[in-house]
């Protein structure tokens, strides 16, 4: 069996009496999409923040591509190959679309401490940046201001920036949110192929996408993983039906 690229062991985070993350362990193997689902308030955001390095866990370790990154900053994790997209688009809104992907390309290549050369004429960076836009279907919008993009286009741009990082591992927080049926379907197709480049830890509410894409699914309830398995195993799991799908039906 291949070594997982992302391995989380016994992660724990409490805010006072509230345990938002309770002894969570999961891993992400090469070539797979591992979906993380759970009702609102299950602790998905807390878990993502800890993996991305925005929040320090109280206990537990995080390994990325064989290295313990638990004590490292967000930036250091990104340099080690963590490509993250945000639930709420987190982009440089005053910049053009191209500038945003250039930023990613620059972050990946390094050499940010260059003060006098014009970055927007850097051929190598431009090539990486344009290729990423091409792949997500945003090439036409390259010169537009990011703030003027539609919601769906911003999501595409998020993914494009992550692509410029050539990450070892993708961490995607609800990339389908607000995309609409057509957009979701297109992104689903795209992620389906993307997993061959780097595995994806996918947090997603869109159950159609999750069950269509995921090799494995972990279900998070009250901060704890109550089940991990294939789509069929998860569908059949009584605890999951009880805690999660049951709620969906009731609502």
């Amino acid at each position, binding site marked *: 069996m291949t070594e997982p690229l992302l391995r989380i062991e016994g992660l724990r985070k409490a805010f006072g009496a509230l345990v938002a993350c309770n002894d969570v362990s999961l891993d992400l193997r090469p070539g797979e999409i591992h979906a993380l689902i759970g009702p609102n308030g299950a602790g998905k955001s807390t878990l993502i923040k800890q993996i991305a390095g925005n929040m320090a866990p109280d206990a537990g370790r995080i390994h990325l591509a064989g290295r313990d990154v638990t004590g490292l900053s967000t930036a250091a994790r990104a340099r080690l190959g963590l490509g993250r997209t945000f639930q709420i688009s987190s982009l*440089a809104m005053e910049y053009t679309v191209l500038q945003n992907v250039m*930023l990613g390309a620059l972050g990946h290549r390094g050499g940010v401490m260059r003060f006098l050369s014009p970055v927007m004429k850097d051929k190598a960076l431009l090539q990486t940046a344009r290729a990423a836009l091409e792949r997500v279907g945003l090439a036409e919008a390259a010169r537009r201001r990011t703030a003027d993009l539609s919601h769906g286009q911003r999501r595409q741009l998020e993914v494009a920036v992550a692509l410029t990082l050539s990450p070892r591992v993708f961490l995607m927080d609800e990339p389908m949110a607000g995309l609409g049926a057509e957009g979701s379907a297109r992104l689903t197709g795209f992620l389906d192929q993307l997993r061959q480049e780097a595995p994806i830890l996918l947090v997603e509410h869109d159950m159609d996408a999750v069950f269509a894409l995921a090799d494995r699914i972990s279900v998070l309830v009250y901060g704890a993983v109550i089940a991990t398995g294939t789509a069929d195993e998860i569908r059949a799991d009584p605890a999951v039906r009880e805690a999660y799908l049951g709620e969906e039906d009731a609502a």
Partner: protein
Amino acid sequence: MKREPLLNAAILLGLLLVPLWALWADAPFTITLATKVAILALAGVGLNIALGLGGLVSLGHATFFGIGGYAMGILASHAQSFVPLTEVPFLIEGTKSMPVIWLVAVVFSALAALAIGALSLRTSGVYFIMITLAFGQMFYYFAISWPAYGGEDGLSIYVRNGFPGLNTLDPIQFFAICYAILALVLFLAARLAASPFGLALGAARQNDERVQTVGMDSFRLRLVAFTISGAVTGLAGALFADLNRFVSPTMFSWQMSGEFIIFIILGGIGRLYGPVVGAALFIILEHFLGGLSDYWHIYLGAILLAVVLFARGGLIGALAGREVAHD
């Protein structure tokens, strides 16, 4: 859309033509005013690297202006009294050479900016504003209470420092020096804004999380920007001291820091040439309103308030349109 570069060229040309006209009309005081504009604009351009590009609202840039000023004052006063600064561990003498003074001013203001930045950039938002203001005040009080270089009274330098091949006592020649430096720094600042560093710094201003997510250390970006910014303002301080042939603790005062920010907002935030227009506007207002009323700061306050509340783009924004040019 391409009106701003044209406007910038006109601004730079205007700042050159006014003293040339004054030379022809034999109005040396106008040349001095134009020189003052060029120097204060330089200080503002320095601050704008931190504020406009990096989004760092420093209310303590007078610190670097003052350090630049005292670099000139201390070196020149030792030179004019023929007493070396120190003889241990090796002899350091004063100097009347502008290039040497500039170098010292830039190095020491950069070091101060590095230290203050390393402390204050641990925070952000209002904390950053209050801390930069407080450190500025620290230098102000230190300059007042340290008697070796004039304390509260400041230091007078009798003869303007020299520049190889020029007569710096001639107002137009000193203007030429200041103008050339301003033009050079504007050119470099434009390159900086379009450089990889500028792209990353601007992104850090807009969205810190984004910059970290692509693997960049935003603290380092800001610290470098703050240091460059302080160094440029320090250079302006050395020139300002040479213009007045006088340095005093008021160069460190919080009002000075406030005025630098006013230059930027009057001209237009986020505009490379904003501080140039702002400084010119400020000096014109000071000159004309100051002639009309002893209480011209009331009018300045009212104008500033009106610009902040109703005309955020400043003068360049009004003339060149709202869109800030990209790439």
